[in-house]
């Protein structure tokens, strides 16, 4: 909760950066001797399992879960008319708890018009531009997070659908390549932390397995809701790698690979993470 306004002295900052770099360097060295192996299905754990009792309690109770503030905003947006067509989401999709159940559990999904998978945010914007004749919502805007949190909430507890099929396969493979590719100044891959060293610590914080089961989620460090792409950008920045613009195809490929990797795990949206 303090991350946003830590006022550290310059020395403290550089010491911290140095120590973090050292930890990462140690990780990289340790890993150059082990071969990366994927986590067996039965051993997968949600980030929830790595949290403190207090943070779990916060997520479990809808009156203490701050993500519910966005869900309620999304519920209001769902039936608000928008754009030149003067239509609301509800005008086409009807009652969200009945009709949107399980939808978020199967995104990113293949879109024939784009000939590639699109994520839930892009799906919302397609609806806005094509059906509602409205301006697309900016990624990470309050309205976009509210709508996706509301849609995601309808799938809470449902298993993430296996996105693998003939059309999505090449994109899932591309995402997998990115997951195992070393990148950035630290020359680190996603897998080195989340497959090989989960359960360990990075700068004092537990390393989770990196299953994206609860997005969009409320992160205490952000003091706000954020999408999976915000999280991915965060990781890339930590690896000192160049991040992609929000909505980039590379992110969506990685997202669909992560969904394949988390297939069958329950949706937690809106989750809470430290």
């Amino acid at each position, binding site marked *: *909760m303090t991350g*946003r*306004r830590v*006022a550290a002295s310059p020395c403290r900052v550089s010491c911290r950066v140095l120590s973090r770099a050292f930890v990462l360097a140690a990780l990289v060295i340790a890993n150059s001797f082990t071969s990366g192996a994927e986590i067996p299905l039965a051993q997968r754990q949600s980030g929830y399992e790595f949290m403190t009792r207090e943070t779990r309690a*916060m997520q479990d*109770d*809808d*009156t*203490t879960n*701050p993500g*519910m*503030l966005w869900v*309620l*905003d999304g519920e209001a947006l769902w039936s608000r008319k928008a754009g030149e067509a003067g239509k609301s989401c509800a005008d086409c999709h009807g009652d969200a708890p009945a009709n949107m159940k399980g939808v978020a559990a199967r995104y990113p999904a293949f879109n024939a018009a784009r000939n590639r998978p699109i994520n839930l945010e892009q799906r919302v914007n397609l609806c806005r531009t094509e059906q509602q004749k409205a301006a697309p919502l900016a990624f990470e805007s309050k309205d976009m997070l509210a709508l996706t949190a509301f849609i995601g909430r309808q799938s809470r507890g449902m298993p993430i659908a296996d996105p693998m099929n003939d059309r999505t396969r090449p994109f899932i493979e591309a995402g997998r390549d990115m997951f195992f590719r070393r990148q950035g100044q630290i020359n680190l891959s996603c897998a080195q932390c989340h497959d090989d060293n989960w359960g360990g610590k990075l700068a004092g914080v537990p390393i989770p397995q990196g299953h994206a089961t609860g997005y969009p989620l409320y992160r*205490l460090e952000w*003091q*706000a809701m954020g999408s999976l792409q915000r999280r991915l950008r965060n990781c890339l920045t930590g690896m000192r790698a160049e991040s992609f613009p929000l909505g980039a195809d590379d992110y969506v490929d990685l997202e669909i690979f992560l969904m394949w990797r988390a297939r069958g795990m329950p949706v937690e949206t809106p989750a809470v993470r430290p």
Partner: protein
Amino acid sequence: MARALINVPPKAKRGEVIEIKTLISHEIESGFRPDSVGKLVPRDIITLFVATYNGQEIFRADLHPAIAANPFISFFTVATESGKIEFKWTGDNGFSQTETAAITVE
């Protein structure tokens, strides 16, 4: 108006100690953070939270800039009689919001 989530048990026994939980959406801008050009973003926080039970004050808290965004406040009280519990948040830039919850005491 800001979103607020209130958790008051709808029913309680007379004399029972009940937990009340409140959560309100608010940016809580501390006033110490610089923006992209290095200028301080003006402070915008909630400064006071008051709860009243059938008009009688039962809880009050002063809030300061170190509070996180979307403040969660929880406290305990004794269920004395049926009625209304009212929550009021006030803050910078004329921020004011009131929410009420009903409780039945048997």
